[in-house]
């Protein structure tokens, strides 16, 4: 069920191709009670989940839209139905591999577009 449709704005993560990053929720359908909290937790912009009204379960529709390092849907699932293919160390490893110039450039860019973020 790895249907892959990726919004272009998420295609690159700090210089690393998003498609090379292994981070997205996986739902265990046997544990999912269909409460829907993961679906609405993810929000409208990334909107990773679909919902199956017949089966009464959440479904991962767009895994590559998942925010690298986020697990907000997982912590909202009281039935522990959501896991990830990797752990926090994997995320830290990715973060440490980002080129310093890339972050510096992105930071300068974000601050110039959002001067209210500058103290």
């Amino acid at each position, binding site marked *: 069920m790895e*249907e892959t449709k990726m919004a272009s704005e998420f295609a690159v993560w700090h210089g690393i191709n998003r498609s090379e990053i292994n981070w997205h929720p996986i739902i265990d359908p046997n544990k999912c009670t269909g409460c*829907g*909290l993961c679906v609405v937790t993810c929000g409208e912009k990334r*909107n990773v989940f679909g919902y*199956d009204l017949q089966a009464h379960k959440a479904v991962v*529709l767009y895994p590559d839209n998942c925010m690298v390092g*986020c697990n*907000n849907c997982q*912590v909202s699932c009281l039935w522990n139905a959501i896991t990830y293919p990797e752990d926090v160390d994997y995320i830290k490893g990715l973060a440490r591999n980002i080129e310093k110039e890339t972050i510096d450039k992105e930071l300068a860019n974000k601050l110039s577009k959002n001067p209210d973020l500058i*103290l």
Partner: protein
Amino acid sequence: MSADQGSQIVNKKLWHGVYRTQLSWYPTINDDACTGCGLCLLTCGNSVFKWNLQEGMPLVASPQKCVLGCTTCGKVCPDGAISFPENPATFIRNVIVKYKVYPKVKEDLNEGLAKFPDHLVDSHGGDKNGK
């Protein structure tokens, strides 16, 4: 564009009927561990952080804008300089139980599916994800 943390809901100040202002959830930066890389500010789509240009360091400027249960900036921080008040799953569980949010979640889900019908999956029709 960097990132968002999902929950537009929080921007409306309500989390499935619960007032965000009733709840306390935010990152704390350990300035001794922080190297000032800037990744936390880039990661957060909710303007929780500001940037101290003189020091070249972030600071937590708007803790009430932090998404409930989110720890994304903490996970990406290469130096492990960001911490949270408690385990996020425990925090969210307590909110869910205390405020009995599921009826509102169901409403929000139905609203979301009406707005984004491509997120309706029909397991019986088998057009998408079908089996």
